[in-house]
């Protein structure tokens, strides 16, 4: 069941999940430019940051953001796919300040760059190992997203999985399903916009 206050969360697709199966109540698939508005919306609704991580799949890097709520518990996962040749993702560290360390950790482990994070120095790995990313997988070991997350509980359905594939024209809003919130297209795609103030959160 999707929580009432999150029906208008900017996303390509919202998928209700059963917590007994996956531990999630809601999985939201987002285009990179929807991430910051969605996260700002979650802070508005008093969600707290549980963690930021990355899963490397054959389609690219899947950025995973987990949030939960102090008063009405129910974990929410935001999922953003970014291309492997340009692993860049907007930071959320100015909205949720604790995300900064998580993002630095992801940079250490995967080499994903969080645009707009002012301090991207190595956190857990040594500074001289800045170019070494231990959690990257070999091409042989990589699996597709649909192989990892089953369809029936928050996973990408076979038809929808294509929503996530980064397009060369870098405009994921164009292949959003028709029922996706329209404000996705209103958000500027520019990576330079990194101010909490300009996030149009409904």
């Amino acid at each position: 069941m999707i929580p009432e206050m999150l029906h208008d969360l900017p996303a390509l697709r919202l998928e209700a999940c059963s917590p007994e199966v996956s531990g999630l109540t809601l999985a939201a698939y987002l285009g990179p430019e929807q991430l910051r508005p969605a996260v700002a919306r979650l802070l508005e609704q008093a969600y707290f940051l549980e963690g930021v991580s990355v899963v490397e799949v054959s389609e690219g890097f899947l950025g995973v953001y987990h949030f939960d709520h102090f008063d009405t518990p129910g974990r929410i996962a935001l999922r953003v796919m970014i291309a492997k040749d340009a692993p860049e993702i907007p930071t959320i560290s100015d909205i949720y300040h604790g995300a900064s360390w998580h993002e630095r950790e992801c940079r250490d482990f995967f080499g994903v760059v969080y645009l707009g994070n002012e301090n991207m120095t190595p956190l857990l790995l040594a500074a001289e190992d800045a170019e070494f990313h231990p959690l990257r997988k070999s091409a042989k070991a990589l699996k597709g997203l649909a192989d990892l997350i089953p369809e029936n509980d928050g996973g990408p359905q076979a038809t929808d999985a294509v929503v996530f594939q980064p397009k060369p024209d870098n405009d994921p809003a164009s292949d959003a399903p028709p029922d996706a919130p329209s404000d996705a297209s209103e958000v500027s795609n520019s990576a330079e916009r990194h101010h909490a103030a300009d996030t149009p959160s409904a």
Partner: protein
Amino acid sequence: MRQKYRIRLNVTTLQTLPQPEVCIALLFEIAPNQIQRLSTQGLAMTSSVSPGRLYLGGDFYTNHFEKGSSPDTMILNMGPQHPATHGVLRIIFELEGEYILRTEPVLGYLHRMHEKMGEEQTYYQYMPNMGRVDYLHALAWNWAWAGAVEKLGGIEVPRRAEFIRVITCELNRISSHLLWWGAFLLDLGAFTPIMYGFDDRERILDILQRPTGSRLTYSYYRLGGVAADLDDTALDMIRDFVPYLRSRLPMYRDLVTDNMILRHRLEGVGHISVDMCRRYGATGPTLRGSGVAYDVRRAEPYSVYPELDFSIPTDHECDGMARYNVRMAEIEQSLNIIEQALDMLPTGEFWAKNAPKPKWKAPKGEVVFAVEGARGKIGVHLVSDGSAKPYRVKLRAPGFSNLSLLAEVARGTLLADAVAILGSLDLVIPEIDR
């Protein structure tokens, strides 16, 4: 002179300064005209990253931190080998007198890359790692891993095993809080309490040693149960221990909690608002010390906790004393839980007969499972591709999120208070570095 003050040769940066002699003179307490002589000989320099600041070496992190600092302040490195950092945490401070302007923890001195090891080992083989993520509450991490895999694979846990898990995990929580209590007070200058704390903690280690076979880095839980049953001797030891520790708690209160020096050190120090907890993801006693009754055992009930009667202690003061009070009250609640679990402990098997075999392949899928550790919400995010090894393991350490708010909460406080704030967060560095 030449020997003593030789720092590094760099005349060009020195010459760009407005008054480099004054900076150096203040530092070494020598006359500016002598510095003038030094600098013309090229024997002193200032930092290249922060113009105006005297260059005294330092590694990558110090140099990075120095960017943007003011020449009038002092940069101080605390740790990684400092007793008040509880392990090998390093913190860089920028100080104005005794007040903290900026601070930045430097992590990674105990980093072992548990998440990578998780991808290289089978589901059973990874369990010993869990005893080493947070060695003070190792059984909570055992539980987080076992619970995540059980959820993914739909593995049934016998009822007796669930109660054994509750009993041992809560005992472990008390031992963690007792060590925190002693070490925290040691940070604040009280030497005696740690002796009492260790004495009582030792009894818990003796109890847990019987079923687990180890005293610190437990690897006791298994997929679908626990490795060994609690025998009658162990149960008797636990039954004796509960009233014993209860009888000790008033002494703890008289000795320490009501102590005026302690209260002066903690009351009003390190104010953490609920909003800050939200933005940084702080959980556990740190959050409950800010008045939010959020406990994973209640919020996302797992195992048999819904059947047990216990309360979630909170304190609305948001300061160091509040976090202290919450932990002391939690010891009592854990004792209540243990007592009830002992009464309810059913007979039966302690490890499911049809538990997975060592080379068991988990079904495909993704699962997130959380438990309440002594420091907060422990989470395991597990992604499986259907093979015998996990595809991705993400460990959510509560200490990581709790420590990340230090930079904000320590700003403007006294250096001595920063030590009190650090202690009140109850850090375990191996958990933060993983």
